[in-house]
């Protein structure tokens, strides 16, 4: 594990250094990404100009959900976002060369092109979290305060696992990137809003089938002191890390199976 982190930092550092040869383009891309995130978030303000509540939630509450989801997505994307390129590596046969090195291909693809511009999404969402916390009128207990980092970590873990699962899917369907993206990016999008706006059936699906409710919705209900519309036991509010762990095991299995059945390309 320590070794994996060492290798990760080493590879990421090397890519950073090579990106640093073009500082202007790096700053530009970072700024563009940040502005795009802010504009996206501004859509919430437009919605709230017409209605005082969204799915039963106030503006600071929706901002809280948006920010926690956004931070989890951003951290997962910074650290592992490039795994979606697996399909390209398979098609071009470059996965072969990754497999020749004494380091797992997941680490190598995850660090590929590592670039500070990936931070573009993290900064705006972190700012939003701070703003929403200042406007939320919450009575902070120790349990509430502890749930916040737990939910961010759980969210990151769930997105990591989903990203790897979606990538592993490309072992089976080489041009499966679009389908895979609909789950990863779709998941990132859905969790930005109170899940109650999608209706009870969708909420059930997002709890039991594709457990995106554990990214931020369930723990946020606890932090915000809201009842669960599905009436699930209180244990569910803290289940995010557990769900992340289960998904991670599934993702690891899928990845291994994919690698074992990898057929390479001709030549």
């Amino acid at each position, binding site marked *: 594990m320590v070794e994996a982190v060492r*290798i990760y930092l*080493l*590879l990421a550092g*090397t890519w950073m*250094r*090579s990106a640093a040869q073009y500082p202007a383009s790096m700053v530009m891309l970072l700024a563009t990404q940040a502005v795009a995130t802010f504009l996206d978030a501004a859509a919430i303000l437009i919605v709230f100009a017409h209605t005082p509540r969204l799915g039963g939630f106030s503006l600071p509450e929706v901002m809280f959900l948006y920010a926690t989801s956004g931070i989890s997505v951003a951290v997962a994307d910074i650290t592992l976002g490039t795994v979606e390129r697996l399909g390209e590596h398979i098609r071009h*046969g*470059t996965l*072969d*060369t990754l*497999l*020749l*090195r*004494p*380091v*797992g291909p997941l680490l190598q693809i995850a660090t590929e092109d590592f670039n500070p511009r990936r931070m573009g999404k993290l900064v705006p969402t972190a700012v939003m979290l701070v703003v929403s916390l200042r406007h939320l009128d919450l009575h902070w207990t120790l349990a509430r305060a502890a749930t916040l980092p737990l939910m961010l970590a759980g969210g990151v873990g769930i997105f990591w696992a989903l990203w790897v699962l979606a990538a592993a899917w490309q072992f089976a369907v080489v041009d499966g990137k679009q389908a895979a993206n609909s789950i990863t990016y779709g998941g990132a999008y859905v969790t930005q809003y109170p899940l109650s706006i999608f209706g009870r059936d969708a909420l059930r699906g997002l709890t039991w089938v594709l457990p995106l409710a554990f990214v931020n919705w369930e723990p946020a209900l606890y932090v915000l002191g809201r009842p669960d519309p599905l009436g699930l036991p209180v244990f569910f509010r803290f289940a995010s890390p557990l769900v992340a762990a289960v998904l991670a095991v599934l993702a690891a299995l899928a990845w291994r199976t994919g690698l*074992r*059945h*990898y*057929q*390479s390309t*001709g*030549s």
Partner: protein
Amino acid sequence: MIEVDEVCKSFTVRRRSGRLRRSRTLVGAVDRISFTVAAGEFVGYLGPNGAGKSTTIKMLTGILTPTSGRVRVSGLDPSRQRTALARRIGVVFGQRTTLWWDLPLRDSLTLVRHLYRVERSTHQARLAELTELLELGAFLDTPVRQLSLGQRMRGDLAAALVHDPELLVLDEPTIGLDVISKATVRAFLTRLNTERGTTILLTTHDLGDVERLCRRVMVIDHGRLAYDGSLPRLRAALDADRILIVDLARAAPPIEVDGARVVRTDGPRQWLAIPPSGNAAAVVAAVAARHEVEDISLREPGIEDLITRLYGGGVPADR
């Protein structure tokens, strides 16, 4: 060093067979191959296009899992212990680089050093040696994407050797290289094998590589091992018959001449086989003396001829 026992590999290929239907077919690439390579050997692995050479190499290096059979390299199971094996072997695919496209060659090699956990002092000494032998000095600081094919190839060789592997596997390492680069690479490989004792397995379509480098050759065709033996035996087989192609002024009955026999005729053109002991010059002189000849050419049997003959069961394996 390498043990391959009854190994098969077939690929699942999906084909469109109609509007929406897709059918899966199994394509055999390697068919029950067995061989062993001892430490210190220098083995050439030959065969025509599509014979299964690269597929075998991918199984040896853990990229592909064999469909059946057993592979051991350095005492490890390649597909299950791939990363452990990677620390012990070096691999170069002539068609593909393992270097980082945007990094200068020197940085790529440093990164490789970190990945393989080679001590800095060991690395410096090794890099100096590789730089000298492979003549890397002129382009060590050039980004890999700007290197020529021959330069990149030498860079790849260096990268595969940073961790001083006990086995070096090369898939067409001289493809597309000019005479000088080829000579550099060959001299380097010979030295590596004799002085460092590195075991080397290489595939190539260049007979020159085989003649100058390999003490043992294995020939694979249609996924089956057709020959496994020493180079002198291969050479004897290669020299079996040279073919003299004679274009006469007009069609004639088969030429009768000492030291050669006609194996084929096609209008005015005749093919004469000259055995290894025969004197080609004498045959040419004799033919020209007795017939009106438009053109004449002598063809050395190429590796493809040899393989065709091998596959027909001409030369039995001596192992």
